[in-house]
Structures are given as C-alpha cells and as structure tokens.
C-alpha cells in the first residue's frame, strides 16, 4: 500500500466540510512535500513523513474542535435552524447510543446461560457501532441504524422462538411477534438521524 493512498484514506477522517474543501489540495501538497524531501535523501524524506503522520492526529483533533465552535457560532447567528435543533440532535444521538449500550450490557449477562441470544448480542454490537457513526457520517449512520433495527427485530424474534422451543414450551407466536418491536426504537432513531442529516445539509447548502 503506498503512502499517498494511506494519506488519502486518513484524510477521510477529517470533518466532511473540511474534507470537501481541502482534501484534494492537501493530498497534492503532501505528495509535493515528500517528493522534495526525497531529493535531500532518505532521512529527510523519513523526517518529513514522520512529521506529517505524527502531527496528523493533533491536526485532526484541532479541526474537529474548530468545526464544533464554527457550528456553534453558526447556531448563534439568526438562521433557519435554532438552538433547539442542535439540542434535539445531540439528545437523539445520546439516547440512541445509551439505549444500544444498555441493551447490549443486559444481553451480554444472559449469554452464558442462553446461547440463542448471541445473534441478538451481535445485532446490538452492530447497532452500537452504527449509532457511533453518526458523529462522523450522519446520513450513513441513519441508514445503517435502520438496517440494524431490522436485524435486532429479526434476531430478537429468533432468540425468543429458539428459547421457547428449547424449553419444550408451546411456542407463543404473539410473544415472538411482539419481540419484532424491539427494533422499533432504533428504526425511529435511524429515521431521525436521516432527517437531521437532511436538515443540516439543507442549511449548509
């Protein structure tokens, strides 16, 4: 894997606005800087390379902090999106994340005695990761969270069905179908992520 490709991929970690504005230029400057350093020998090239990669995380952090303050400034100015939009968006993210982590924690405790819960645990791990994506890729996180909601519903129904079957009980289809509702909160959270993403994009444009 060549270094420019690694840098190209790393640039994708930058906030979306910054990436869209500068990624192409940054990649070209990075390539030129290394090319020039190479003319001065291997150690110069290595020093330039190390400087770029060592400082990268600090630059990234600084840019996210700036992006946040920039967004807050934008919210403070009279705009179509009032402050409560920002609060509602943050609340949705936190509620989605806390709910996923809570259910994950509860289910993990059940795993030793109930192996049929494992697919549901996997679904909740995916849901948690999907909710975490929202801080970087809002719309994508919305779509994946909705997909995870479906997965949670299906694996939940499967876990209930196999549990009742393993206990030799008469399968109560009403209960199995009711577990399909487990996915509903994430369906709502995912849909809200998409709506917030659309609203944010509309304001930015």
């Amino acid at each position: 894997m060549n270094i420019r490709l690694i840098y190209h991929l790393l640039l994708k970690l930058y906030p979306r606005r910054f990436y869209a504005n500068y990624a192409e230029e940054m990649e070209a400057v990075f390539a030129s800087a290394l090319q020039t350093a190479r003319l001065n020998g291997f150690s110069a090239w290595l020093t330039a390379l190390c400087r770029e990669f060592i400082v990268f995380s600090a630059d990234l952090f600084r840019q996210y902090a700036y992006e946040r303050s920039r967004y807050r400034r934008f919210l403070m100015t009279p705009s179509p999106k009032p402050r409560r939009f920002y609060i509602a968006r943050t609340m949705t993210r936190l509620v989605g994340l806390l709910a996923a982590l809570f259910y994950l924690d509860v289910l993990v405790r059940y795993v030793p005695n109930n192996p049929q819960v494992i697919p549901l645990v996997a679904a909740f791990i995916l849901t948690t990761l999907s909710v975490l994506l929202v801080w970087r890729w809002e719309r994508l996180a919305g779509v994946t969270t909705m997909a995870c909601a479906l997965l949670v519903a299906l694996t939940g129904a499967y876990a209930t069905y196999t549990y009742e079957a393993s206990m030799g009980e008469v399968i109560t289809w009403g209960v199995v179908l009711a577990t399909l509702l487990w996915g509903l909160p994430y369906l709502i959270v995912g849909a809200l992520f998409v709506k917030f993403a659309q609203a944010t994009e509309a304001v930015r444009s």
Partner: protein
Amino acid sequence: MTTSNSDYLPLTEATFLILLSLAPSAKHGYAILKTVQELSDGRVRLSTGTLYGALDRLLDLGWIERIDEGDKEGERGRKSYQLSDLGRRVLQAEMNRMVALVTLARREMSAE
C-alpha cells in the same frame, strides 16, 4: 459590538508567517509551506494538516481569499490564496505591535 484589528492580536507565529508569506503575491498551498519555512530559516515547518487548518480559519475570518487559477487540460484548477484588505490591515497592526514592543525593549535595555 464591533471588533477592531487589534482584538485579534497577538497572532500566533504560524498565522503571522502564513499571512506574511502571502503579502507579496498570491500563492498555492505548497508555495506557502515553503515560504513559511524559508521566512523562519527552517525553524517553522508546517505539516499539511496544520497549514490547511490555519488557511481554513483565515478564510473564515476573511483575512485571506481563495482564488481558482482556472481549469487546465485534464486536471482541476489549482487553488491559490491571497491576502485580503482586512488581512493586510491585521498584518500591519501586528507589525506595529511588534515594533512598539521592540522599541520599548530597546529603550529599557539602553537605560540600564
């Protein structure tokens, strides 16, 4: 409430050098990087991320402007950066501040 140029002072060394590098003419990213290095005798070596982070802030402040050099055959147009009138005034204010400090220091040192 209005802000005057002096409200932004003092500038960080990197910001000062970036603005100074753009004072004579518009430059693209890599040229700024090299000029900053030359102006500081190799002491300040900006990483690409630091440079573009600073340029982004300066654009937001309106101290510099981004200009498109126009599309060339087979490649997208290269972007250059130039100092705005406001940026030039801020740079001048920072230079005045530095001169005042140096004058003060010289006077105090010679009085010893």
